[in-house]
């Protein structure tokens, strides 16, 4: 049988050329660098790094799914204090959570190589934000490395540990979706460090103090010096050229392909900047000198562009025209500094600078518009049998029955789909992890100023441990009045089913004591009930009763994620529509199962004009059967 990606990472020998995604390549680089501690809160597109590293025996490497990013970074930093190499992994949003600690520890610094790997998600393919984390790194005064390819991601991961030890502070390795979730051939290297002794002698202290701000500054100066000759910054194409494209990350690849497509290989120099903060100024100045045009290619915002324009302003370099996101010349369909880069954007920018008329292959804008008018969007949808759909329906029903038009504060997870059509447009607010209870608490204080709508907040189980507990304590202490609904599917579903403190399973797949949500809630003195959302009427009734109680209340909707349940392949139930009972459009339900309930398992048979079940898709939850007004959907137990 062929090896999985993680097996190539862990078992691959030096010299092997294997197909890895960027996250696996980073994991391999970290292993070759002798990493001993790896922690993360899962978040797309970063999750496969610690997932991969968790397959290494824990005598060699400690791995952890932490409850949130700041705890995760604190743990990894502790390993660094003890002289070990440590990696902490997060998505861009996670850097916000970890930032308080990062900005503190970066003043005092650390010891063993500490690499904070942040995976940004330009275009927000699997995020609500398309953050450029380099600006946060700059604010925290932490150096940034940006790989352009999967192969370079491995090499940079190794180098990042070395740089960190040289400057005695953390280094950020910034990936993006098109690195983390791209596959390419990677040549594996050999392990460069075998040492695994943790040592924290008395007298080694790691403190933060205002005056240490100077240390952080000096560390950046040192990093800039190291970066000048590190090999991650280089140029391609003619030595002397009027035009240079300064690129970082995958934009290097798009620029290179655009130059080849336009046949400008002899005209344009590519300047690849791999160390984007602090900039290697001497290297960049050597390429700025004598230029007429400088073009910038990077994601998401104008980070190196700003740095290089500032460098230009400080040096006497003659007239250079700058084309980038600041000038608006490098822009996709969303305009400059929004969305991903691609080859097409670079072709258009280069064609403009060179006054070339370029006819792109593909459709005319008119034809594209005609086509997109024809094709309805396929937004994210919840899976067949997803317990969240049942939970949302119960909340929707309860709010309607209650009649006071409750405000629903949403939160982040698979269930953020509660903000859109597939989740009945239930949410009135949606922001970041843990925001729901805070907003609900605030709203519940506004009765004195005339706001009479009750408040419900909906959070997930993993989110509960990550960010909800302080909000609940605050709510209980300050006398808030809201219902917190916890959708407990026993796993961090959205990012690929990682375990969390309530799952009863460790990162290594071993059983551990589950920390129960209800125990925490009751420990705070907050009333708590647990209902299976598949039991939809009971679920709705319970909400109705609880929203009418004063104070803060927690209702746990507990039902395993439908995908996890499907994988266990337990006894499945067959669900079908009794065609003699379905009344079709004469029913008056408005095709409830298909057009309102909206589970992919419920389909409409246009030939018979009646409802049907797509049995290949149906998960057998049977909730639609309990909701069908004609009672036409039948659930049958099968062995």
């Amino acid at each position: 049988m062929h090896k999985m990606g993680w097996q190539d990472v862990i078992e691959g020998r030096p010299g092997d050329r294997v197909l890895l995604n960027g996250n696996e390549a980073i994991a391999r680089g970290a292993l070759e660098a002798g990493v001993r501690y790896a922690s993360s809160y899962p978040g797309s597109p970063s999750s496969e790094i610690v997932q991969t590293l968790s397959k290494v025996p824990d005598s060699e490497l400690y791995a952890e799914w932490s409850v949130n990013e700041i705890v995760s970074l604190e743990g990894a930093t502790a390993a660094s204090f003890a002289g070990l190499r440590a990696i902490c992994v997060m998505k861009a949003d996670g850097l916000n959570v970890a930032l308080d600690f990062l900005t503190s520890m970066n003043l005092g610094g650390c010891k063993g190589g500490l690499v904070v790997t942040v995976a940004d998600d330009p275009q927000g393919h699997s995020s609500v934000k398309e953050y450029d984390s380099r600006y946060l790194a700059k604010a925290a005064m932490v150096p940034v490395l940006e790989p352009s390819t999967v192969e370079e991601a491995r090499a940079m991961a190794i180098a990042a540990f070395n740089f960190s030890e040289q400057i005695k502070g953390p280094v950020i390795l910034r990936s993006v979706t098109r690195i983390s979730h791209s596959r390419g051939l990677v040549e594996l290297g050999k392990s460069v460090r075998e040492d695994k002794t943790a040592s924290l002698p008395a007298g080694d202290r790691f403190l933060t103090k205002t005056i240490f701000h100077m240390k952080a500054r000096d560390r950046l100066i040192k990093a800039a010096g190291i970066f000048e000759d590190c090999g991650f910054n280089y140029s391609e194409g003619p030595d002397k050229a009027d035009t240079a494209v300064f690129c970082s990350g995958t934009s290097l690849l798009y620029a290179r392909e655009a130059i080849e497509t336009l046949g400008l290989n002899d005209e344009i120099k590519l300047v690849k900047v791999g160390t984007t903060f602090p900039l290697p100024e001497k290297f960049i100045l050597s390429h700025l000198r004598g230029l007429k045009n400088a073009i910038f290619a990077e994601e998401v915002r104008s980070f190196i562009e700003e740095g290089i324009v500032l460098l230009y302003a400080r040096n006497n370099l003659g007239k250079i025209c700058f084309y980038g996101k600041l000038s608006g010349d490098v822009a996709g369909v969303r305009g400059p500094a929004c969305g991903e880069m691609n080859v097409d954007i670079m072709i258009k920018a280069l064609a403009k600078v060179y006054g070339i008329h370029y006819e792109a292959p593909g459709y005319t804008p008119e034809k594209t518009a005609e086509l997109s008018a024809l094709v309805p969007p396929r937004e994210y949808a919840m899976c067949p049998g997803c317990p969240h759909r049942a939970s949302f329906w119960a909340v929707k029903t309860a709010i309607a029955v209650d009649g006071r038009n409750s405000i629903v504060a949403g939160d982040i997870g698979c269930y953020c789909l509660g903000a859109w059509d597939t989740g009945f447009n239930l949410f009135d607010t949606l922001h970041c992890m843990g925001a729901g209870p805070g907003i609900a608490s605030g709203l519940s204080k506004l009765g004195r100023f005339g706001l009479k709508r009750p408040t419900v907040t909906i959070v997930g189980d993993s989110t509960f441990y990550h960010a909800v507990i302080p909000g609940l304590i605050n709510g209980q202490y300050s006398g808030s009045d809201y219902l917190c609904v916890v959708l407990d599917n026993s796993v961090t579903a959205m990012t690929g089913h990682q375990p969390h403190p309530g799952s009863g399973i460790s990162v290594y797949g071993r059983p551990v004591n589950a920390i129960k949500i209800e125990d925490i809630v009751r420990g705070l003195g907050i009333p708590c009930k647990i209902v299976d959302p598949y039991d939809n009427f009971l679920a709705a009734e319970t909400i109705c009763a609880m929203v009418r109680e004063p104070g803060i209340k927690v209702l746990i909707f507990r039902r395993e994620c439908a995908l996890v349940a499907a994988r266990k392949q337990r006894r499945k139930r067959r669900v079908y529509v009794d065609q003699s009972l379905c009344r079709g459009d004469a029913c008056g339900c408005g095709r409830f199962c298909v057009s309102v309930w909206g589970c992919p398992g419920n389909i409409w048979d246009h030939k018979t004009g009646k409802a049907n079940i797509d049995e290949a898709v149906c998960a057998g939850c049977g909730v639609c059967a309990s909701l069908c007004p004609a009672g036409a959907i039948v659930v049958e137990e099968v062995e």
Partner: protein
Amino acid sequence: MLKPVDVLIVGVGGQGAILASKVLARAALESGYDIKVSEIHGMAQRGGSVVTQVRLGEKVYSPLIAEGGADLIVAFEKLEALRLLPYLKTGGTMIVNDQEIYPVPVLVGAAEYPAGIFAYIRSVAPDTVVVDAVNIAKRCGNPRAVNVVLLGVMARILPIEREVWEKIQLDEFVDIFLTRNRLRKKGFA
């Protein structure tokens, strides 16, 4: 010199398009290609559009295929075939699974599932191959193995030797589709 080939594999989350792209990449690797694959999984685990780009060649830089650049589009769902049509190169090949999966706007009645998709696609790509992969997979005993059936069709079109596919198939599928000797053969019939 290996001829560069750009393949787009599109479908709906849960159909197995990403797995298909992994198998294709392995087969290309065995054949000596340089490879770049880019996957977009979408936010939730299921139900959104999944677009996987596989680029093969002597040397491949960017993982992304530009509009009008795909030599082959393999669509696991009809609507997704139509959506990605602008990416097909003039003279490129389209393989479409004859399956409709309604997106949310269609389910809730806010939009129509377009009629005449094949006619539209054929007006641009006359040689489009339509495959009833769901029924083929069902007949072989595993309705979820649509991806294997489509891989079988892909295998006949791509410049990769049959022996390579057979080797890769055995490597990749033994664990995943247990039924499936028959299916494997069907896909390659």
